[in-house]
């Protein structure tokens, strides 16, 4: 989790991620819980141990240099072992590339891998209608991770789910706070476009001419 405290007046274009807008500030970013790496880490550890033991036994045989079958067996084990290292480390790197960023305007879910995937989903904060936290199961409650389901007004495909977030309660509150701030900011911007906080259209007819005069001569 990363918190950002930046000045409003700064130009933030492409500052923290590609596509960031000028007045867009990053509220926080997060990744999935490390527990998602547990299955691949277990397989990697166990299989690596077995393969290293197998390779040691193969080489330690007295006739390894003369026996083509033993050499082939050793090479096959080595190929599986090296392939396993590639898969494991690419999974670790891909884990770091999948990021959720929440700014003062929108939520960006980036699902990216080095070779296979490059997805990006952007949800405007004002489009989020409901947020729901799902933290089911013993491990999810012990290790404090879970899913956040966001109901988006413009989507007809059902809620958008952010899977396996660490400390989902915190992020639920953060997203709600960001949404509230965004709505308040939009209202302030709308009010700021009027003079004195009141739109000329909403004025009584007697005051409307004064407001139009102010608009024409702001100083």
């Amino acid at each position, binding site marked *: 989790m*990363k918190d*950002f405290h930046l000045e409003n007046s700064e130009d933030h274009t*492409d*500052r*923290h*991620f*590609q596509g960031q807008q000028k007045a867009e500030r*990053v509220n926080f*970013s997060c*990744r999935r819980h*490390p527990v998602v*790496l547990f299955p691949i880490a277990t397989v990697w550890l166990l299989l690596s141990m077995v393969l290293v033991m197998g390779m040691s036994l193969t*080489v330690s045989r007295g006739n390894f*240099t003369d026996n*083509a079958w033993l*050499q*082939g067996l*050793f*090479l096959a084990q*080595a*190929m599986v*072992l*090296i392939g396993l*290292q*590639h898969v494991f*480390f*690419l999974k*670790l*790197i891909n*884990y*770091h*590339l999948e*990021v959720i960023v929440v700014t003062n305007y929108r939520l960006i879910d980036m699902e*990216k891998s*080095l*070779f296979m995937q490059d997805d990006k989903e952007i949800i405007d904060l004002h489009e989020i209608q409901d947020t729901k936290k799902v933290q089911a199961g013993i491990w999810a409650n012990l290790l404090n991770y879970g899913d956040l389901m966001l109901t988006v007004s413009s989507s007809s495909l059902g809620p958008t789910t952010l899977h396996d977030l660490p400390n989902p309660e915190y992020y639920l509150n953060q997203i709600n706070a960001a949404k509230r701030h965004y709505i308040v900011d939009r209202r302030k911007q709308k009010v700021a476009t009027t003079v004195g906080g009141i739109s000329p259209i909403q004025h009584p007819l007697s005051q409307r001419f004064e407001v139009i005069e102010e608009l024409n001569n702001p100083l």
Partner: protein
Amino acid sequence: MTTPIAVAALLFSLFSALFCIWAVVRLYGYKRLYSFEGMQECHLLGFISLRRIVWSYGGIIFVMSLLISVIFFL
């Protein structure tokens, strides 16, 4: 000993090392996408940084490729 198996082992080692270099080059190309420190110096479980993962990846692949080549050619 220069047997077909030894040549295959050498070629596989070379291919593996090149793939590793390609992956790391692609990863560093992503610096433009995630330009803030939180994205680059991100930590897994509080202490495993992406930099350490990349160095471990390169180191393990390099050592294993070298080991296979040594076993077959010495």
